[in-house]
């Protein structure tokens, strides 16, 4: 019996709303925009932060990355300007050993030398990064081996002249030939290509510290650390604006892999203290992906709250629109209310009737809003390439709010209708 009454009430509500199609449509529009903007805004926010978080995750949440930094300008100027002079800075092999020995919870310490050089094969010349590192780079940083093999302990031990190329570089240098077993030339030495890898992500993609949205540099060549040391030497020469600049630098980067994330948290301050002790001139920076991840999540939470509130306000405005229209409707239908009361309708029947109308309006608007709200992010992704993620909770939230708004803003007009005196209502107009 109750079910039947509900169904007939909904039918009746729809019928009454259809009497004023334009008015009902316009009223729904407020809710449609509100729901749509809640879903779309949260989807865009979610997408943006997802990308950032993925980028950070690839750095490895168990890792702590320390990079050498060229000291600030003023300290350089103290040398003789115009003449060649040597700048000595950066991480050292000793730092690596100290980190491995003194910090608890360290699993492995991966040293890297990163030198910018042009690599040549035949007529082709491509600027790239020559990364001297150890075989377990593959596991810590994460590269996929496509062909051949990665560097081995043997290569390291015997300072072999071998190298592994990234996919992009390989295709640029060898458009027609099979790169495997070929030799290429970097500076004045030759290296035999033993493998091709695809980078998942490295910190080198970030040309500036703190910035996460750099184009990936797919021009890497990996050689054994010992080979890099013996062939390039500790002193690197760089040509800058007409003058030579000599830099003495042992290591460009040390990636410390910790046993687990709790170890990362305890090790972070310890590593800072340790490095501060040996590097007074601040020629390094520490990147803790776990910390960045936490910050990114925090930022996203704030972002979501702000976006959500803006969208919720538009829903609120939609709700006020509904209430306004319903109040007008109640006035307009006062006579009908009186007739219904005379024919046996209780107060709560009248309340239900008008409440059903507002809920139908807001749920109807909610459904259309959800549809548009799901389509909008897809369009945004399609047109701008921005990543968007429509989450189920955001859809439920938007839909739930629209339903709640229907009830909250419908209650007052519905109650006002029910409280009308039947006689006065019948006499209306």
């Amino acid at each position, binding site marked *: 019996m109750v079910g039947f009454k509900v169904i*007939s009430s909904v039918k009746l509500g729809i019928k009454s709303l259809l009497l004023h199609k334009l008015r009902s449509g316009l009223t729904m529009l407020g809710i449609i925009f509100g729901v749509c903007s809640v879903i779309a805004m949260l989807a865009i926010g979610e997408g943006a932060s997802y990308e950032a978080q993925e980028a950070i995750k690839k750095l490895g949440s168990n890792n702590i990355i320390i990079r050498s930094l060229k000291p600030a300008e003023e300290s350089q100027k103290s040398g003789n300007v115009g003449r060649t002079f040597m700048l000595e800075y950066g991480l050292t092999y000793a730092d690596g050993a100290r980190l491995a020995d003194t910090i608890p919870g360290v699993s492995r310490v991966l040293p890297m030398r990163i030198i910018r050089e042009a690599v040549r094969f035949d007529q082709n010349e491509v600027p790239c990064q020559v990364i001297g590192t150890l075989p377990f780079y593959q596991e810590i940083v994460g590269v996929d081996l496509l062909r051949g093999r990665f560097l081995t302990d043997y290569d390291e031990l015997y300072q072999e002249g071998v190298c592994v190329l990234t996919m992009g570089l390989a295709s640029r240098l060898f458009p027609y030939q099979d790169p495997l077993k070929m030799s290429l030339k970097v500076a004045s030495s030759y290296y035999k290509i033993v493998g091709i890898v695809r980078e998942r992500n490295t910190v080198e993609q970030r040309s500036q510290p703190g910035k996460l949205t750099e184009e990936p540099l797919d021009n890497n060549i990996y050689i054994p650390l010992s080979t890099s040391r013996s062939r390039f030497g500790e002193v690197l020469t760089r040509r800058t604006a007409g003058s030579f600049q000599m830099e003495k630098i042992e290591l460009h980067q040390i990636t410390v892999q910790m046993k687990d994330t709790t170890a990362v948290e305890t090790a972070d301050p310890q590593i800072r203290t340790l490095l501060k002790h040996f590097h007074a001139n601040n020629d390094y920076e520490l990147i803790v992906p776990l910390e960045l991840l936490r910050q990114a999540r925090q930022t996203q939470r704030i972002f979501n709250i702000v976006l959500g509130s803006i969208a919720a306000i538009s829903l609120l405005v939609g709700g006020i629109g509904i209430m306004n229209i319903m109040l007008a409707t109640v006035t307009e239908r006062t006579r009908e209310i009186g007739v*219904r009361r005379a024919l046996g309708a*209780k107060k*709560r029947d009248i309340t239900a009737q008008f409440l059903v109308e507002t809920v139908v309006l807001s749920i109807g608007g909610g459904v259309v809003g959800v549809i548009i709200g799901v389509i909008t992010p897809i369009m945004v992704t399609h047109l701008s390439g921005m990543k968007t993620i429509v989450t189920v909770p955001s859809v439920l939230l938007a839909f739930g709010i629209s339903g709640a708004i229907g009830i909250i803003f419908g209650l007052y007009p519905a109650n006002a209708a029910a409280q009308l005196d039947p006689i006065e209502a019948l006499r209306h107009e």
Partner: protein
Amino acid sequence: MKKVAESKPAATSSGNGSRAIIRIEGIKKTYVLSAENIVHALNGVDLSIHQGSYVAIMGPSGSGKSTMLNILGCLDRPTAGNYWLGGDNVATMPDDELSVARGKKIGFIFQSYNLIAQLTVIENIQVPLFYQGVDLARSHDRCVELARLVGLGDRLDHRPAQLSGGQQQRVAIARSLVNDPIMILADEPTGNLDSRTGTEVLEMIDHLNADGKTIVLVTHDDKVAARAHRVIHMKDGVIDREVLNRPGAPAGS
């Protein structure tokens, strides 16, 4: 016309009995507009109405006819006095019970028809049943039959706006019958109609009375009142005098 009114009651006289379905005792209705301005719309009315009777209420404007009918129809509660409707004292009923009493025991016919604009003829007839929680699908046939009875069997899906005033009033009559009420209350049912359609509607009401329905009708028209068994004249909120049109019709109280 008078002949119709007089020839029919024979059929109902057996049902008349002496059982009063409605009894009013010392009903007062007072509107306090301000401290000095107090309106006594009804000022102590006693009245009994028996099963199957046909009562007309007359009187000058402002004499309290509509107020009286509203109280009889459970739309309003008296300020003082008792109102017994089929055994229940309506005067003290809470609002929800008044609604139920209206829905089950009273049929209304209004001067301005008061059909619901967005509903069709058949749906309008169904409204009182809806609020009693009756299954509309099962009672559909009965509603169609009522529509046929008032001569609108071929207009079931028309909306009020597509009907003439007389037709609308006939829908209202069908609607007033659908819940099989104890009595039908009509406040100037022909006030908005021309004399011919008015007569049609009145004849229909006569038929209802002939079939045993109790009718209470407010009118300004002597010809209309002449159809009733009993004419109650009101003045300044009290019953001024009472006229029996038909010999043997039961008198009040």
